[in-house]
């Protein structure tokens, strides 16, 4: 068995490095603030606020919590708000963080939707949005590229084939997501299991 597996998950007591757990209002406000600062993604700001600014979690605890939220379905950062809030203050804390993260930007987004519905055909707005769209796609490509580099460096053929398979099935063939994942997830888990056993043997 590889020794790196099964990281110790128990950490019941709060170490001395922590700040005292925040109140519900403080949680709500902290998540509202990081959400409103988070242009183009909230993760960077969330980590900064939770780990560096408020010291509610250590860097390792944050990584573990985020990893959990990354492999669960749904928007990562939304999951993170619920898990993080509930770890500090129970379910009420989870709801406070969740609401803080979502309520203010949802209101802003609704206002923008109203503006768009009314002025979306105005030529200037269309041109500006077209320019922003191009840049936004560029940002997405950059994120994909950054996440891909560790996989490419390992030169793991099976992993790269899996990645390309999903890309082609969804991006080129436009197959429904559920169908693709129902096939791809078991295959990927099976392959990973077999490969780890080989490495361990």
């Amino acid at each position, binding site marked *: 068995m590889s020794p790196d*597996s*099964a990281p110790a*998950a128990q950490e019941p007591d709060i170490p001395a490095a922590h700040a005292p757990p925040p109140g519900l209002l403080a949680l709500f406000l902290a998540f509202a603030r990081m959400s*409103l600062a*988070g*242009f*183009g*993604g*909230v993760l960077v700001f969330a980590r900064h606020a939770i780990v560096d600014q408020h010291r509610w979690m250590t860097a390792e605890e944050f990584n573990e919590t985020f990893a*959990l*939220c*990354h492999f669960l*379905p*749904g*928007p990562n*950062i*939304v*999951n993170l708000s*619920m898990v993080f809030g*509930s770890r500090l203050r129970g*379910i009420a804390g989870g709801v406070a963080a969740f609401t803080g*993260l*979502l309520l*203010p*930007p*949802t209101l*802003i*987004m*609704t206002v923008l*939707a109203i503006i*768009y519905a009314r002025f979306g055909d105005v030529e200037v707005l269309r041109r*500006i*949005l*077209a*320019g*922003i*769209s191009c*840049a*936004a*796609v*560029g*940002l*997405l*490509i*950059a*994120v*994909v590229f950054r996440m*891909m580099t560790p*996989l490419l460096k390992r030169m793991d053929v099976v*992993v790269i084939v*899996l*990645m*390309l398979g*999903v*890309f082609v099935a969804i*991006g080129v063939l436009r197959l*429904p*997501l559920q169908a693709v994942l129902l096939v791809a997830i078991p295959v*990927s888990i099976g*392959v990973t299991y077999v490969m780890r056993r080989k490495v361990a043997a």
Partner: protein
Amino acid sequence: MNSESPIWALISTFGLMSLFAVGGAAAAVPEMHRIAVDVHHWMTEKQFADAYAIAQLSPGPNVLIVTLIGYAVAGIPGALAATLAMCLPTALLAYYVSRLLSRPSQSRWPALIQAALVPLSIGLMAASALILAQSTDRTFVALLLTAAVAVVASISRINPLWLLLAGGLLGFAGIV
């Protein structure tokens, strides 16, 4: 007109989609595009690209593109229904799983499953990029702008907001 059905269509669509959205909001974009543009005709290609741009430019989690889709379908109730349907079920799931996992003596399965999902989620995000690029980059200059932003954002730590604003300025000037 049945005023109830669009809301339920939004709730069931996004509630189900969120449960399959492994790898975050960006990975779910192709599916949102397929449902909103191809299946239900809630939006045109252009409207969807605009919604993506607005969601990127606005603060908050990028998943809130669903708020814009919901508004296009059924106004403010649609916006709220779509947002909650996309965010709440998986957040509750995450809460329960996190409580389960915080018990000691866990197996190596969580780590293994997580490793197995990484290539899939990156493949999904790459597919999002392709689909969005096909609907936005219709001219050579637009393609060039996308490529330039991709390169700059890959090699520097510049705040993404500046790149989005630069894109908006170029659009305003009528260059893109």
